[in-house]
């Protein structure tokens, strides 16, 4: 067996079970690391054990026992010594059901609401996905030392505040699952954002988010909102090859070469979403995924069912009011019913003032003015957007559009 791939695959499962067996999050992480190192030394020499997974868990457990015993002896605590002895002799249950529970417990502990959201994201990537601290730091454009510190703090809180390594009770499951889904979605959007980090690390984050989504769908089958989240990520991810040019310029949906869309992900995402909707999914992720599915279905940009997309954004706006969703809706209404109606909606949003300083507001206005055949006003709006935009790929796109409409005014 290839140890490196085993490491990636099994890290999570080995850690989850080791935490369950030992009850110590922090010691377990180090111990699992040590167990993999020991495997790397011993397996090539002595042969791979019959059950590598159970070998890794018992090795890690023994390391934790050593650590605890050293501490207990140092503190001369009889009670601790007895606990360690019991742990050493504990039977490691490795049924399939127990393994599923262990992994769920690990995920729910990492995404506990008593932890700061950025700490939840970092801890999930570290312990559930097995990413290195460096990889996580790069993904979130954070210095490695800061990220390391964040992980140390969050593990200390888990230990000192006595966070349970447990599934939430039934009545809190939906609320807690929302938190878990948010973490998965944040990992995905961080990877998907065209604004930060190197391509390979963004790819890694998207892949990990989709993997987490799949894992959760496996562990908690028949949950419609989870399946909708996975569908949403697959459908967005399907456009990854088409959504930026060779110089990383943003390519809008309308201009994307749809031949480059990942048909495999679309073929998986659309039916997944349909089954989720039939099961009653109607949350934020389901509605966004439904929008993405309508885009995926359109063979050409002009085939897009904008009226339906505008309706979906309308629903999303009712459920989760946000000025950004309102802006998306305005753009969809404009595509369905004509630029002037969209422009009126955008004017209304501007008056509310919540999107002040947000470059996509003037950018959307500019786009509609351009479509409406008003290049002079469009140029002015593009200039406003350019004054606000913070990232290069989008700036390049806006500059190109500005040059286009300026060409029309002279």
């Amino acid at each position, binding site marked *: 067996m290839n140890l490196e791939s085993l490491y990636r695959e099994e890290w999570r499962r080995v850690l989850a079970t080791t935490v369950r067996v030992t009850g110590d999050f922090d010691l377990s992480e180090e111990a699992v690391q040590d167990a993999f190192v020991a495997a790397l030394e011993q397996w090539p020499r002595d042969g791979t054990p019959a059950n590598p997974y159970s070998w890794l868990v018992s090795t890690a457990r023994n390391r934790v026992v050593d650590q605890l015993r050293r501490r207990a002896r140092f503190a001369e605590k009889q009670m601790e010594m007895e606990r360690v002895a019991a742990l050493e002799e504990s039977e490691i249950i490795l049924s399939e059901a127990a393994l599923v529970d262990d992994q769920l417990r690990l995920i729910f502990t990492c995404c506990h609401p*008593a932890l700061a959201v950025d700490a939840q994201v970092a801890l999930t990537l570290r312990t559930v996905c097995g990413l290195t601290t460096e990889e996580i730091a790069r993904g979130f454009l954070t210095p490695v030392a800061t990220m390391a510190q964040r992980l140390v703090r969050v593990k200390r809180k888990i230990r*000192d*505040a*006595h*966070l*349970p390594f*447990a599934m*939430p009770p039934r009545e809190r499951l939906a609320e807690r699952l929302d938190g878990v889904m948010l973490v998965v979605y944040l990992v995905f959007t961080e990877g998907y954002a065209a604004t930060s980090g190197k391509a390979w690390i963004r790819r890694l984050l998207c892949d990990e988010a989709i993997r987490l989504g799949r894992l959760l769908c496996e562990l908690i089958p028949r949950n419609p909102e989870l399946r909708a989240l996975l569908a949403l990520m697959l459908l967005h991810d399907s456009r990854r090859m088409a959504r930026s040019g060779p110089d990383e310029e943003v390519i809008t949906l309308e201009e994307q070469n749809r031949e480059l869309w990942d048909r495999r992900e679309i073929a998986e995402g659309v039916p997944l979403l349909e089954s989720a909707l039939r099961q009653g999914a109607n949350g934020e992720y389901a509605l966004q995924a439904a929008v993405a599915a309508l885009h995926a279905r359109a063979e050409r940009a002009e085939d897009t069912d904008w009226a339906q997309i505008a309706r979906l954004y309308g629903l999303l706006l009712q459920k989760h009011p946000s000025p950004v969703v309102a802006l998306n809706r305005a753009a969809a209404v404009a595509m369905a019913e004509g630029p002037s109606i969209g422009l009126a909606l955008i004017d209304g949003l501007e008056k509310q003032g919540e999107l002040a300083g947000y470059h996509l507001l003037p950018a959307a206005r500019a786009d509609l003015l351009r479509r409406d055949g008003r290049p002079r006003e469009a140029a002015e709006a593009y200039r406003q957007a350019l004054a606000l935009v913070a990232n290069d790929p989008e700036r390049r796109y806006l500059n190109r559009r500005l040059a286009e409409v300026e060409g029309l005014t002279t």
Partner: protein
Amino acid sequence: MEYLLLIYDNEADWAKMSEADQAAMYKDYGGFTQSIQQSGNHKAGQQLQPVATATTVRVRNGKRVVTDGPFAETREQLGGFYWIQAKDLDEALAIAERVPSARVGSIEVRPIVTGH
């Protein structure tokens, strides 16, 4: 595990409340206290005097500095605490959210160092 539930609320809001509303709040506290006494979670709990009676003690460079007033100027003041027993943070949080002032103020849940 043992936890302390620290109750934060706004004294000015409390002072502005009608006597009937204050009485209703005290009644809620009585009910809550009794219920966690019955469930075995209760260790101790007291209402504190208004923040104007507070004194803060600090030690700077090994020297004690005594000042009048609470530890920080915020909109909410520490108004009381519950000292509870709970098997883990989740149980403590579930109890904290039942403190009547959770509706209008904040409850800080702080684990208590044990084993010393």
